[in-house]
């Protein structure tokens, strides 16, 4: 119950309290504004700072550095090979363990578990093959995925999954 009076009005004139509150609010608004800018830049999901490409020899991977749990993302893998025919792609099993693999296009001919990696075999009639893996991270935290293709190259992706 208020003990003070302002004129005839029984209420505490808590001006110092409100002045503190206004200062805190200004700081909070600044923080929220910063959060939006950080998000627009891509640090909380898709955006310019999130989009990344790594390349080694004939293997190029486009991916997002910053992901969100339970939101789909995509790895776009381009393999350049000397010959057409069977193309092999090795993906660290950590991807399947930490994320739901929604689709792989084109569909692999076979998938074999091989020493912590999943070996995918694709049939390709071109010297450049693009493979898209759609996945949905399950939990927040760092997600490291190694990708390799015998004869093309090997890359390591480091992603961060926001809750």
């Amino acid at each position, binding site marked *: 119950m208020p003990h003070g009076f302002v*004129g005839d009005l029984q209420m505490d004139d*808590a001006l110092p309290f409100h002045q503190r509150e*206004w200062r*805190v609010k200004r700081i909070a608004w600044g923080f*929220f504004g910063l959060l939006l800018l950080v998000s627009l830049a891509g640090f909380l999901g898709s955006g310019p700072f999130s989009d990344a490409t790594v390349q080694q020899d004939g293997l190029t991977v486009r991916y997002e550095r910053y992901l969100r749990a339970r939101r789909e993302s995509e790895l776009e893998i381009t393999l350049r090979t000397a010959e057409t025919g069977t193309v092999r792609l090795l993906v660290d099993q950590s991807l399947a363990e930490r994320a739901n693999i929604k689709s792989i296009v084109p569909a692999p001919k076979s998938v074999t578990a091989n020493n912590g990696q999943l070996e995918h075999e694709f049939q390709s009639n071109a010297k450049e093959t693009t493979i898209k893996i759609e996945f949905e991270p399950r939990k927040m935290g760092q997600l490291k995925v190694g990708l390799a293709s015998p004869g093309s190259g090997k890359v390591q992706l480091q992603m961060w999954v926001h809750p």
Partner: protein
Amino acid sequence: MESVIRGLVVYAFLLLVFRLSGKRTLSQSTNFDLVLLLIISETTQQAMVDSDHSVTNAFLLIVTLVMTTVLLSVLKQKFPAMERVLDGRPLLLMENGDQRRTSMEKARIDEEDILEAARKNHGLERLDQIKYAVLERNGDISIVPKER
């Protein structure tokens, strides 16, 4: 367990954002405020429920939200300082007919808002008929008219 944690996190976040946005934000003074409130509730619901549409999850979330509210009300009753921090305090906008300009500006309230409250609740016509105007903790403006 995840449902309860999710409910608590969303509850805390909403409490923080609404507390920091100011009393008058989304106080439903315009139709658009109401629309915005509905959009926020829909967004919140999706984040809380996620993909689990089971009755168990719904029960858990409801109990989490209600029990958190009950717990906070008990704590607020026990610790008045906590009540002041969580709910804020009433803010005097007009004293003896004089406007407190800084308070009005900081609370983003203008004469029109005060006149609207005066018209609605007391049928007053002019500012000089108002003795006290107070911005209450829920964002409403209370008017005490001058004695006629």
